[in-house]
């Protein structure tokens, strides 16, 4: 047992107690319990009333001692939380009519897949400060996006002006040298365009850099009908695959899932050499909402990989149990391809390709 092993063991034990709990798990549990209400209530009532009454009397006595006495008695102990919690639930069916069972909506089931939101990506490069920009069009009316020379004329944080053609609208804003990624989002009603940015604060000056992107629509659009605004800052998770979320299956093999905001795709990456290099594959549109790997320890194989996305169809290898991942199990699709790259570099590769396209 080396120091390294001790260190790893401590990290492992720490991880056991700090693992994040799936969002909404308690709500889903409550939902399932609500569906069980009639069965449980009829059995619960047999003993509950006497216990509740006894606890209530104890609580009253305690309250009287605290309020009525000159000094609170040190021997009076608060009712244990679990006991007091159990003492407060709804009355038993003997005192109230049983309501029809109301099955709560199953939060673990994702909504039916919807069509991907059209997205375009461009790279703005004013003054040698390249910035990848992802344009998301919820209105499905944008037919293209292209970088243009910025020319801000107002003090609006996000300016929307008419472009050179009736079908073009220019969205411009002032960013900074630390910007890593921006997302321009047009809402479904085509009345608001939001600009969100992922910014780091590492070694760049504070001089504002004007950015502008031209949106081309399928028909003439009045820029005055669209209001520009700042959107919420982008999550670092959107930049590329997140190595901190790697799950390793043995010393060499591991998986990580992530969302690349630049391409708008969810990715699954696999390493066979302990994380030195990664093979990645796009598995669908949208933000990754969950992923799971099942390892058959007997044959040391990874027969099941699943990933669900906020938009698009969930992906899973054959053999996935439906319970493993919300929404998975129905309408599975195969990976498009396996590519080669590093997890962090998944987005960079696409950005390089796009820069080449822009240059051409």
């Amino acid at each position: 047992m080396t120091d390294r092993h001790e260190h790893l063991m401590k990290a492992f034990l720490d991880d056991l107690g700090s693992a994040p709990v799936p969002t909404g798990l308690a709500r889903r549990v409550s939902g399932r319990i609500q569906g069980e209400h009639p069965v449980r209530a009829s059995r619960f009532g047999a003993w509950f009333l006497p216990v509740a009454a006894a606890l209530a009397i104890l609580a009253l006595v305690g309250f009287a001692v605290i309020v009525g006495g000159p000094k609170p008695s040190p021997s009076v102990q608060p009712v244990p939380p679990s006991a007091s919690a159990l003492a407060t639930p709804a009355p038993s069916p003997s005192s109230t009519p049983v309501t029809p069972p109301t099955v709560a909506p199953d939060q673990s089931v994702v909504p039916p897949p919807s069509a991907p939101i059209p997205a375009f990506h461009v790279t703005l490069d004013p003054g040698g400060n390249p910035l990848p920009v992802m344009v998301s069009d919820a209105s499905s009316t944008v037919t293209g996006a292209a970088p243009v020379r910025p020319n801000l004329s107002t003090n609006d944080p996000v300016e929307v002006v008419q472009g050179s053609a009736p079908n073009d609208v220019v969205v411009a804003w002032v960013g900074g040298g630390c910007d890593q990624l921006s997302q321009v989002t047009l809402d479904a009603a085509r009345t608001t365009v939001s600009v969100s940015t992922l910014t780091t604060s590492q070694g760049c000056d504070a001089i504002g850099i004007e950015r502008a992107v031209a949106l081309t629509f399928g028909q003439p659009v009045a820029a005055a009908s669209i209001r520009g605004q700042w959107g919420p800052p982008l999550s670092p998770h959107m930049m590329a695959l997140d190595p901190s979320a790697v799950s390793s299956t043995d010393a060499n093999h591991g998986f990580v899932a992530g969302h690349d905001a630049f391409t708008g795709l969810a990715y699954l990456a696999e390493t066979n050499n302990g994380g030195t290099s990664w093979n990645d594959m796009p598995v669908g549109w949208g933000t990754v909402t969950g992923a799971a790997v099942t390892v058959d320890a007997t044959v040391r194989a990874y027969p099941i990989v699943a990933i669900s996305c906020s938009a698009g169809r969930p992906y899973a290898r054959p053999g996935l149990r439906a319970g493993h991942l919300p929404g998975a199990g129905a309408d599975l699709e195969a990976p498009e391809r396996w590519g080669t790259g590093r997890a962090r570099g998944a987005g960079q590769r696409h950005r390089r390709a796009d820069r080449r396209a822009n240059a051409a």
Partner: protein
Amino acid sequence: MDAFEQLVTDNTPAVYRLARAYAGDAAAEDLAQDAFLAAWRALPALREPDRFGPWLYRIALNRCRSSVRSNGRVTEIAMVQGVGEPAVRGDFRTAVEARAVVGPAFRCLSEDARAVIALHYAAGRSIRECAEVLGIPEGTPKSRLNAALEALRTEIGRAEP
């Protein structure tokens, strides 16, 4: 129902982590839900309401044991938990290594050893609470925990001399 919901809210993280440690990530959520549902159904059998905690964790542990036995030794590992909730904080290499090296060794331990480690480290139960959950004398979990950690060291050393 409101009171039980509160108990669910209070105990969900610990029950989930217990299931995750014992049975793996992919099965953890299902097992945690099943444990609460079983507790809800069996609530009339709970004669001492103030012992709800140990009773719940015993149910959860039994569910995990049944699941692992019925599924063989299949381990399931979840990855991305959602935006803003990194699965592992700190150094990436350490996290990967820890899971890669210690994870298989942990799964080689006996059921009792895994149970006491999962209860203490994953569910955050004290030694006394571990004794209540496992139904053993109060002094036993401490020695069992030490033995489990020693066994874990041995397994790690065996896998990586």
